[in-house]
């Protein structure tokens, strides 16, 4: 499954109201580690049909960055039932990411 880039306006519908757990990949074009992590994020999206994976461009969505207190990217945040359940900060392996996100 592809990783859809979403805007702040779509966040409520795509993440908060989602029936399945969601992983949000906070990233930016200028962030090298985010781009290296992208293939791992895509791999997760591919192998976990039970999870939705979306991305947010932090330079476009400052309100989301403030609301979810993102202070470093790459930053993956897992949501279940609209609330945060786990967070993985920095470049990490797939198993470390699953561990940090609790998924």
């Amino acid at each position, binding site marked *: 499954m592809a990783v859809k880039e979403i805007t702040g306006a779509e966040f409520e519908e795509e993440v908060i109201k989602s029936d399945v757990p969601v992983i949000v990949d906070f990233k930016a074009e*200028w*962030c*090298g*580690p985010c*781009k*290296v*992590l992208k293939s*791992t994020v895509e791999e997760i999206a591919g192998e976990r049909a039970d999870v939705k994976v979306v991305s947010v461009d932090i330079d476009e969505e400052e309100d989301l*960055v403030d609301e979810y*207190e*993102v*202070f*470093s*990217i790459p*930053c993956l945040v897992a949501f279940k039932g609209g609330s945060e359940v786990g*967070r993985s*900060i*920095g*470049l*990490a*392996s*797939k*198993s*470390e990411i699953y561990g940090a996100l609790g998924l």
Partner: protein
Amino acid sequence: MIYDVLIIGAGPAGMTAAIYARRAGKSVLVLEAKGYGGQIIKTPDIENYPVEPGISGYDFATRLYEQTKALGAEFVFERAEGIVDGNVKKVKTPEGEYGAKSVIIATGSESRPLGVEGETALIGRGVSYCATCDGNFFRNKAVAVVGGGNTALEDALYMADIAETVYLIHRRDSFRGEEATAELLRRRENVKILYNSTVTELIADRRLRQIVVTDKEGVKTTLDVRGLFVAVGRIPENRAFENVIELDGAGWASSGENCRTKTPGVFVAGDNRSKDVRQLVTATADGAVAATEALKYIASL
């Protein structure tokens, strides 16, 4: 399968070693804990590596990765947790074990933490080791930079343009970094330099709120800061391999320019090695040397 050469770390040193070993027709496995590229993927531009000034760290690493993969090196994204010596050397990861005739340890280095309680849990929640990566999240906020070398001075100067106030905290009474940069900092109105001081406590809820700084008389000051940028040097990633390599006092792998270690068939390459210049060009040079030594070793078996 028993690989001819197993390389730990897909940074510039490890991937260059893989290129040399593959071009000599050897089977190669690269184990990488996080993602290809190593430290360099954090930098927006590289100005001092021969041939292509201005290339981004990400592009440099990606092209090196693609070159290495195209030559047929295998990559597995697992952390090496130890080496068992023997005719066949075994490298353990959380997921399994890999056998090889020779091993090249190219694990580089990472930022040295301050060692203050709660620091690790606050990474990405106010604590950062890379001002150019995370600085923008602290626009018009107060931040602190810790350290006295060039990285700390440059980080403080970088943050002075972004943050409201920058406290530069250094444990000595003078900087190790360049005087010219220090002078630029002294002239900035929003930079406050605290000499002879260390960060002794982090106060946080979900995110960093305050730090406590203690000076050499023992006087404590609490500062309201949202960001703490730690620039107190780098530490090698060698501890897991202490049974097969010798470490110097600071933990760097002792070895000569030939990249050999005390264990025949185990080599070290790149920033984790004891050396004076830690740069891309010396890391890639080590990769070439270590691979060539590994080939010689395999031929002697």
